[in-house]
């Protein structure tokens, strides 16, 4: 029962808490700040100690013996979507909102099993256009619609 859900989570958060604790020592304090009862490092230091303590307690006394079940899930697809979202973040400015978003949605639909290209286009493009128009004209939130090279100077 070593690798139960609680222990794995506790372990991960313990690493995070220790890293946080170490980083808290790098918070730069001026000499007069360091002498005050409460400074920029106080809360992080208290929190890191608390988090380390709680993580250790979870590792030592897990609430359940349930093991994680990772089999039977489309992890590859999940990773592809994470990559797709990251790529969208990188491309939304250079490609412009309309093209980047339409492509994001169409690739998303295709990854989830839609094979008819006309359906990909028919669902994504009008929705993106309508959404952009609603945001720009309805709510006054402007977002650059066109790719960088097509923008006027």
């Amino acid at each position: 029962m070593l690798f139960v859900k609680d222990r794995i989570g506790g372990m991960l958060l313990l690493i995070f808490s220790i890293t946080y604790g170490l980083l808290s020592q790098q918070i730069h304090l001026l000499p007069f700040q360091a002498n005050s009862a409460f400074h920029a490092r106080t809360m992080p230091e208290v929190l890191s100690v608390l988090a380390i303590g709680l993580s250790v307690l979870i590792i030592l006394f897990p609430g359940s013996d349930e093991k994680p079940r990772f089999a039977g899930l489309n992890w590859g697809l999940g990773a592809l979507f994470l990559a797709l979202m990251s790529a969208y973040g990188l491309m939304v400015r250079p490609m412009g909102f309309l093209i980047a978003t339409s492509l994001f949605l169409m690739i998303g639909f295709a990854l989830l099993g839609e094979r008819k290209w006309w359906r990909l286009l028919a669902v994504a493009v009008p929705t993106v256009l309508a959404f952009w128009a609603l945001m720009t004209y309805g709510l006054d939130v402007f977002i650059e619609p066109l790719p960088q090279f097509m923008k006027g100077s």
Partner: protein
Amino acid sequence: MLDGILIGLGTALTPMNLIFVMIGCFVGTFIGMLPGLGPMSAIALMIPIASTLEPSAGIILMAAVYYGAIFGGSTSSILINAPGVASTVATSFDGFPMAKQGKAGKALAIAAYSSFSGGVIAAIFLLVAAPFLASVSLAFQSTDYFALMVLGLTAVAAFASKGDVLKALLMTVIGLMLSTVGTDQTQGVPRFTLGILDLTDGISFLLLVMATFALSEALIAILKPNDDSKRQEEKDASSHLGSMAVSKEEVKEMAPVIGRSSVLGFLIGVLPGAGATIASFLAYGTEQRIAGAEKGKLFGKGSVRGLSAPETANNAAATGSFVPLLTLGIPGSGTTAIMLGALIGYGIQPGPRLYIDQPEVFWSVIVSMWIGNIILLILNLPLIPYIAKVLAIPSRFLLPFILFFSLIGVYFVSFNTFDIQLMVLFGAVALFLRFLDFPMAPMILGFILGGMMEENLRRALLINNDSWSFLWERPLTLSILVIAGLCLIVPMVSPLFAKLRKAKPVETPTAD
């Protein structure tokens, strides 16, 4: 109070705000109906739009989305036994069996009438309780606020399910830790920015909420293999609802249940850390216990009482959770934590001063609850057969849209693509932690309260000449901290006592 109600009516009944209530109820129902997406995701998705509106309109919109989403969650619980949120799990106990008996329309109508009644009755309690509590809390000082925030955070542990206390506490602390990222508010020192300029302003709360709820929910759905038979079941359920008429006998049976569950739901909603889920289960359990042997047997098989009780209680609790938010500025639940974040984004500090400084915001939220509930009843109920069609939209189209709305919602607020990358990172981590059954709501609560807690503690120390004695010298602060301590200790100690009791053989009294 009458002045306040009139101010609230004046604000909430403007044509634009009425439209926002309608849109909010409709969109909330729509999103809440999608299995997995609950009120927190629904409100988070609406924040980018709400932030473009003026404060009253924005808060009215978000409040409408809140109860719309609860109503929507009940619909998917009843129709396909897939509760959108934990607070509607109890609804499925009797709602789904009723739908299976061909009475889905009736079940939806009972749920809608109960939600309406619970919401309206609780809004009356709120009307009385909120101004009273606000006037009392005017006497609160920074030290008391600090103690109250500690109580709000430790209460999470008190209401966590068995075995989850430590995890809930740890996630709260993780939320507090994330709130320290960025420039320190008082001393202007950068903390945990790792030299990244985009982190100087800290992590946006919207980003964190979207990543941990909407984004990770959609990713969980993507990871699960497609189940075509279930989609077909959902499609069938949304197309055959049956009659929505409720008989006189059923109304008579519902009435006392609604009365009891409203009071229970409201009181539980007011408690920090409790909320709609606990309220709905408690109301269900209470009604089952007092129903008597004959009626009690029907629970779980399509009982009117069994459906009405949790529905009334969860809506009443949702309304009740606004009491600590509006009067003390302390969110009682994850959902109100998100609303608090949105209010702070508007530059509004909820708390006792809100009642005095911005009465139009305070009262319009309360009045909009009535209007929202009325709209849910007269607009959403007849439209349910059509809104329910959303359950038949193929997930291959729905999921990329949810991801897109989450990403663009964050991007529209900051116009910084770094936020999208950070969101993907948080989404991936949240997904993994959710698979390991680590709760996300306490983290959001910690994140929202973190900054305020540090500020109040710092102010308290400043007032008390850097002395920590205020923690035990001020009776009110001490009392709140003692309650917080009990909230922390009792859930940890009670399983030990239970184990000890089990270990000891029970002595049964003999006749002689």
